[in-house]
């Protein structure tokens, strides 16, 4: 037990890192839910696709353990490719699998999303195999470390937190301060009325998917760099936890998703020394169930009556 307590400072650092990634993914869930009131099951797999795109870039640009261009360029290329790739993937999914079903029974887009999710997981597993692919983090990122008391913060840890927080602040500003952000909020509030006001609702929804998916793609590369490996199944649990984070922070609420992500990451990391490693995921799942049980009404943002 003493040993476990001694690990807490390190676990707080880990929790912050983990939480930043959950928060990045949770933003996509929360933005889409805010506008369409739909859980995008494929979102976790978009994150996985982003991770694989980042891995693909290192495959091209890192040969025999050495980057063929400056390491900074490799990182830049990873971010650009994963951001654009994941963003476009998200837009394509929305256009092909969700938009045609809008206005129908609410089960239809959920089942369609399940199909997309299964498609992405299995096509990656069929192409690259079920085993994890290695990401050569050590060759593209400096190995600097900072000691804070008994905790160690590596360069990757810092990168994850800084990039994630930067993006979250940028997104928050975009949604709150720009004209386009206002259009998004209006669409989330009342899609029909927003349409009457001349807002191009379909375009706003596409942009929402673009942004949410690009953020998930970035979370994917960060995860690849942090864990130094990617696999086809990584989006499943990460997506589930990010969704839990979005629910924790009131789904539909962007700042809430960030807080929920950090909170869940912290809970998971701090509980790690105390529970068998294999059961960490069980803890996250119990958090989801408990939140749904104890505060079901607060979870939908304000408790809205069903639209009649």
């Amino acid at each position: 037990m003493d040993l476990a307590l001694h690990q807490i400072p390190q676990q707080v650092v880990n929790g912050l890192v983990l939480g930043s990634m959950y928060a990045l993914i949770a933003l996509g869930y929360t933005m889409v839910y805010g506008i369409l009131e739909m859980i995008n099951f494929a979102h976790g797999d978009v994150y996985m696709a982003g991770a694989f795109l980042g891995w693909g870039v290192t495959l091209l640009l890192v040969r025999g353990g050495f980057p063929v261009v400056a390491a900074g360029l490799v990182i830049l290329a990873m971010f650009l490719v994963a951001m654009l790739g994941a963003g476009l993937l998200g837009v394509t999914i929305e256009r092909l699998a969700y938009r045609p079903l809008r206005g129908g029974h609410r089960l239809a887009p959920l089942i369609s999303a399940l199909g997309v999710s299964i498609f992405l997981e299995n096509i990656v597993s069929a192409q690259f195999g079920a085993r994890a692919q290695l990401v050569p983090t050590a060759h593209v990122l400096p190995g600097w470390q900072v000691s804070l008391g008994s905790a160690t913060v590596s360069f990757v840890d810092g990168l994850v937190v800084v990039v994630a927080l930067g993006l979250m602040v940028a997104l928050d500003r975009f949604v709150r301060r720009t004209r386009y952000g206002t259009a998004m909020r209006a669409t989330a509030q009342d899609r029909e009325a927003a349409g009457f006001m001349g807002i191009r609702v379909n375009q706003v929804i596409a942009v929402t998917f673009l942004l949410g998916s690009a953020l998930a793609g970035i979370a994917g590369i960060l995860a690849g760099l942090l864990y130094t490996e990617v696999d086809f199944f990584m989006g499943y649990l990460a997506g589930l936890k990010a969704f839990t984070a979005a629910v924790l922070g009131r789904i539909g609420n962007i700042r809430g998703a960030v807080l929920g992500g950090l909170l869940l990451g912290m809970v998971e990391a701090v509980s790690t020394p105390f529970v068998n490693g294999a059961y960490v995921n069980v803890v996250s799942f119990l958090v989801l169930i408990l939140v749904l049980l104890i505060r079901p009404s607060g979870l939908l943002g304000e408790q809205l009556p069903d639209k009649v």
Partner: protein
Amino acid sequence: MTGPGEGVQGNVWRSWQGLGGRRWIPVLVLAAALPFAIDNQPFDVSSRYLLIVAATCAAFASLALGLNVVVGYAGLLNLGYVAFFGIGAYTYAIVASVQAGRHWPPVLGLLLAGLVVAVVAVLLGLASLRLRGDYLAIVTLGFGEIVRQLMVNLDRPIDITGGLNGILGIDPIAVGGLQALGDQDYYYLLVGFCALFVFVMLRWERSRVGRAWMAIRDDELAARCMGVNVLGFRVMAFTAGAVVAGLTGVIYYSWRASVFPSSFTINDTVTVFMMVILGGMGSIPGVILGAIGITVLEEVLRPYGEYRFVIFGIALVLLMRFRPQGLLGRFSFRPRPRPGPPAEPAEEDVAAAPEATA
């Protein structure tokens, strides 16, 4: 109404439906005669293999019928459905196999498995069914994965599930001195259970319970206003489906004699979903045909590994877009007319439900 019922075949279909419960008698006779036909088949495959496929079809038909109660009647998206199949199988395997050296009477094991599945389903249902349908989907998605991880990890410190190696040497089903041995016995056992489920579901469909489920599925708010106990009926549908899956798990895995965590992934849930959606949510003959079709297709596509799930993924998206009610489904995906202006531009509504506008 949409679906079959139009045109010339429609007449055949209607007179078939007009037979009511009796129309199942020829189906049962055919199913009972199938092993004899398989024994004397002229094809260039082993008869044993065909019998195994037939028995697997029966098992998956039961599984799909259970999911049909949950998603087809009650409109609940249970994405952890095969977890209940697995819990049933593992419960039985733990009390009736060489794993723990316990050999309970199989009937007792079957009852215990049903009970365990029911308790888990009621608890999970009470926790998640009070909320909007989407929450159930994500909670069950998580539940399915957690159950699989528990199967993998509960081999330490005390070996309960056998971890990745699973449980081997599961006892065959036996009643009194009668023991199910060999594929043919299990074929009949699985067909018998499937017939039992069909019977129960035919009764449900027309009962107060079935009407309540469909009312909630079609319009929760309206059902609530009519005084339907939404939570109660939802938990009931969720549990009924789970118990069907659990019992099927016991029979199926006592036949296979071994059970592994790798049989209960999201891909397996999607396979059962494919059966229900392709056949037609809410339609008992549709779901059975879907189960047979997908089981046979899985056998044909087996050499292609994961690509068959790639195909299933695309198929789900296409089905939702072009034929959400499946082959024989009665599940109406038409958005109900609401007072006031339409929620979406008309163009989208037409695209969403091409059948409904006819």
